């Protein structure tokens, strides 16, 4: 229905990572604020069952189009596969706001995300600076076909190879797989082989960061012997940062994405103009600066306040 009574579907890539929880919390935060302004928002939170199943996410979007919701906030699993359902939605006048990952189309209403490539670059620079510009590093990739992590990996590779020629990348073609367990196993095996020579490791997302951290602890190489730069703030990775087992985390602002996504839908329904592209920012957090207030908000998002 029009007016102030809105059903909004928020569709993440998955549902079982803290990152998506933060987006959810942001969306709820927006809903609460809007309800104080007299709106009535029915917020639906629904992702595909698995984080890499494009087909299922397409089906989820299609189903909400069939249900004629008033707006969709979508973190597309894939920049192209989701084009068709998004265009269908727009063609039946359901506004779609893209968050987190890009879409190869311009028929969406707004795009609110981190610059992932830049994030990868930041990570590379931080790692290289800690190593004083030389040494041996490993890039452990996440999963085949995940656009956001691939951009981070590309950004990392770009800076490492172009800006720091005396750093040697000794392994960069192993994928950690979707879970902490698969990451843990893969990294254990990698470290058994390269453990003696490696000086630094980069992980493009949270499960991989934790897998590496656990494997380093097992081998007695944690605490800075091998420098680890990870991505995203999760309970365990932040804890690792505090303990000194992780030397840096590239952190995004997922709550902001969820928050702005819902707000944008409401703005569109009220015929207010929205920006086509919003950058929510990315920065490196280290043990030294993690207590600064604005970093604290990123590392410890107030999930409990908004989710139940």
């Amino acid at each position, binding site marked *: 229905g029009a007016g102030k009574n809105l059903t909004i579907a928020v569709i993440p890539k998955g*549902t079982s990572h803290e990152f998506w929880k933060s987006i959810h919390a942001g969306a709820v935060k927006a809903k609460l604020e809007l309800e104080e302004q007299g709106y009535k928002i029915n917020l*639906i*939170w*629904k*992702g595909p*069952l*698995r984080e*890499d*199943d*494009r*087909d299922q996410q*397409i*089906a*989820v979007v*299609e*189903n*909400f189009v*069939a*249900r*004629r919701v008033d707006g969709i906030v979508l973190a597309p699993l*894939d920049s*192209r*596969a989701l*084009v*068709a359902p998004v265009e*269908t939605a727009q*063609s*039946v006048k359901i506004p779609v706001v893209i968050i987190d990952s890009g879409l*190869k189309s311009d028929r969406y209403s707004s795009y609110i995300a981190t610059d992932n490539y830049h994030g990868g670059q930041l990570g590379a620079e931080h790692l290289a600076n800690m190593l004083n510009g030389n040494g041996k590093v490993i890039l452990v990739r996440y*999963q*085949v*076909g995940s656009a956001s992590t*691939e951009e981070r990996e590309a950004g990392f590779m770009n800076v490492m190879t172009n800006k720091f020629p005396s750093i040697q990348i000794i392994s960069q073609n192993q*994928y950690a797989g979707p879970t902490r367990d698969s990451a843990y196993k893969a990294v254990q095996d990698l470290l058994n082989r390269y453990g003696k020579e490696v000086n630094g490791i980069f992980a493009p997302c949270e499960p991989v960061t934790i897998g590496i951290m656990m494997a380093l602890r097992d081998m007695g190489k944690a605490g800075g012997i091998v420098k680890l730069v990870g991505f995203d703030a999760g309970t365990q990775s932040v804890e690792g940062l505090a303990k000194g087992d992780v030397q840096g985390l590239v952190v995004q602002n997922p709550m902001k994405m969820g928050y702005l996504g819902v707000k944008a839908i409401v703005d569109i329904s009220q015929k207010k103009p929205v920006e086509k592209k919003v950058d929510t920012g990315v920065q490196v957090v280290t043990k030294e600066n993690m207590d600064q207030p604005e970093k604290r908000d990123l590392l410890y998002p107030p999930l409990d306040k908004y989710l139940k």
Partner: protein
Amino acid sequence: MKTEHQPILDEQTRRVNLQQVINLLGPFLILAFVVMFFAIIMPGEVADTFFSAYNFKLILTQTVVVAIGSIGMTMIIVSGGIDLSVGSVVALTSVLGAVLIKSGSSMGMMILAVLATGGLIGLLNGVIISVFRMTPFIVTLGMLGIARGLTKRLADNQTVNLPDIALPSVGLLMADPDPNGYFVAPGIAVVIDLAIIMALVLNHSVFGRYIFAIGSNEATARLCGVRTRLVKLSVYTLSGVFFGLAGLMQFSRLRQGDPSTALGIELDIIAAVVIGGASLNGGTGSILGSMIGALTMAVLRSGSTQIDWPNYVQEIIIGTVIILAVGLDKWRQSRGRQ
């Protein structure tokens, strides 16, 4: 003597006919049950959109890949086998399609190559299973890994994206030609035609009967002069072509080659076939049943998304329905006996 046997034997025939009818109705009952379940628990406005023609078309489109896979899988399961490599084959063929189109091949060539690749993998499975007499479960479990690996190799570990101009023709098969009317995507028509043809083949052709015979008792079939190896080989090859076709549909739906697609779809397909009345011991099963089974799974998925349940509820409910559906079937059959 003749007259003496008559009553019991007639009764036997009648019973069997009745049971056949009940068996055919079985999957419909389950589908009806699921639909009714949603009709009852859905709040008004959700139900309005759920029970609309548009949504019906949508569900049909979402069924296509699993339905085509079920046609092939029905043959395999009736013949007493199983194929776990479907998901990987669907991924491989859909990536192959994308790679070919990207490198400028024509649609016709691409379709041919995709179906041939599906058939080739089926043939390979079939050779190992029938010539070396290895358990289908293990052979196709191995093939699951091999085909998935090949897919990633072929896709060079990333999604294969197409130039924009290719997209409309690629998407044609699975695109709704008319979102506000009653025409359906061509893919749906393909499924219906193929299902009818394969149902006829399975029930009325010599080949079809041999598939049943092998699934029911392979040793006897062989002794009766059925070329069991050849038939099994053909079953896996033909099913492979169907899985290739499913890959084509998936490609058309995603409009890109995604090496990680269709992971675990084999379990959905097997569930559809078994809900449709087939037994994993071989010798029973029907295409019509499998189609209804596939539709049931799609309705469940779609319904639970639209009704706005969290994912875990959806997983629990689908798991429960699979068990209930097959249990209901069992119960119905044992009732039919008495």
